């Protein structure tokens, strides 16, 4: 999806407000937009969530089903995360195979969750090297207002926190569903992704679509419940100084704390 050309007047306004440390929607530089998380919205899926981060909306479903393990990882289950920007989410979004932007989005969301070890995949094995449980998380962006990285990540995490893992038994080495029996997913930590944009020398947390169109560069930093950093991705066509990179990590840790609380609440429903 190509970024909408932002009109020069709007861009001027964003830049001049930033010089005074202000943003067009009144937020502080380190403030995220209101986050609304609804879980269990797709009953047919084993887990699901709809997240609204400002006006960005993502619907995510988790499908859990038996699968063959990866060749050299026979002692763990499978976790795969995808993302799609639906054509109805934005006038510039086109149907078709994923472009580089969507591929990056999916891989960054996937890495943030995978590297945190949120799901203990070793607990998802039915028969070592032969049969495991696969968790497939598919994010669909339904409305675009910037910062799809965080919205998809929160929707994925909320879906995983509230999913129910069906029970499978091996009958003659074939995994068979045991109806009506479920278990909690093996959760070890709650990863929280925080994306920051750089406009001139200002760093802003959770850029909306207009700010996204003015950014020189962005960075997404994911932290786990211990406050450690488990994934980083820099994007955009400018660079960061080391001081800015350190500042971003600090902003990410403090913003993540509040969001983790919201995810925990959603996880309890």
């Amino acid at each position, binding site marked *: 999806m190509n970024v909408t050309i932002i009109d020069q007047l709007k861009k001027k306004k964003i830049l001049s407000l930033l010089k005074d440390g202000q943003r067009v929607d009144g937020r502080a530089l380190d403030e995220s937009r209101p986050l609304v998380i609804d879980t269990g919205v797709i009953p047919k899926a084993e887990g699901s969530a709809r997240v609204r981060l400002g006006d960005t909306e993502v619907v995510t479903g988790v499908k859990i089903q038996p699968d063959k393990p990866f060749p050299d990882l026979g002692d763990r289950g499978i976790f795969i995360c995808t993302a799609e920007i639906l054509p109805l989410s934005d006038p510039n979004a086109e149907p078709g195979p994923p472009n580089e932007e969507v591929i990056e989005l*999916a891989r960054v969301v996937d890495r943030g969750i995978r590297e945190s070890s949120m799901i203990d995949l070793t607990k998802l094995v039915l028969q070592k090297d032969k049969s495991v449980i696969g968790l497939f998380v598919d994010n669909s962006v339904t409305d675009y207002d910037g910062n799809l990285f965080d919205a998809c990540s929160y929707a994925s995490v909320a879906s995983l926190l509230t999913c129910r893992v069906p029970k499978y038994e091996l009958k003659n080495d074939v995994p068979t569903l045991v109806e009506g029996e479920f278990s909690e997913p093996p959760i070890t930590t709650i990863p929280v992704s925080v994306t920051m944009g750089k406009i001139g020398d200002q760093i802003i947390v959770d850029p909306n679509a207009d700010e996204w169109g003015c950014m020189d560069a962005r960075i997404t930093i994911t932290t*786990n419940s211990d406050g450690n*950093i488990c994934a980083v991705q820099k*994007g955009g*066509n400018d*660079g*960061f*100084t080391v001081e800015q*990179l350190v500042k971003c990590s*600090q902003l990410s840790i403090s913003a993540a704390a509040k969001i983790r609380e919201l995810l925990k609440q959603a996880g309890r429903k």
Partner: protein
Amino acid sequence: MGVRKTDIVLLSDKGIRCDGRSIDEPRRIMIKAGVLKNANGSAYIEFGENKILAGVFGPRDVHPKHLANTDRGILRCRYHMQPFSVGERKNPAPSRREIEISKVIKEALEPAVMLENFPRTVVDVFIEVLQADGGSRCAALDAAAVALADAGIPMRDMVSACAAGKVADTIVLDINNEEDQEGQADMPVAYMPNLGKVTLVQLDGVLTPQEYEKCINTGINGCKLVYEFQKKALREKFFGDSTQ
């Protein structure tokens, strides 16, 4: 991720890594500029067991025309691995990983490349990984930057890249393939050495905030070491010698 059983010793008591290097030592690096006849600019790099070729065309006409920007030239980048470049044959079609790396490399070069004076054109950067080892995206970037300079594309600064990581609870420079698989964190970094800006940074793995900062700085030190090889490659080709 979990702890994996491994036979190799990632870091001995004496601070020697599995391939005999010390914690601040990069693998062997060799860069040659101007290796292809047809490309406007080119470079070949060997970085550890990575063998990577980069070719640049441009600035040139953009096709399809709707991609052209009327204010400035655009940069296109394709990172592609040869089927024979890895242990198990890789399907020649671009994988999602290659597409992401292509994007990340392009965004690491864009801050350096000055395309304001070439509206409606494109600079194409083609990177072919002939043999892959850990840290191939950094090695690819190092070759691409030299190829761009070889082509005479105006640049604000060179871009140098090197990965740092965490292995056996220690921050180390330039992790190799085994360290990437068995280690605890992998952070590729790209840096503009004279302007002092980081243009690529990614992280897989878990680091405390202190380790994160140390890893960035270790990566930057690696970038500065690679910069010397990039300079050498260009000087050797254009000035006939590597001293000046």
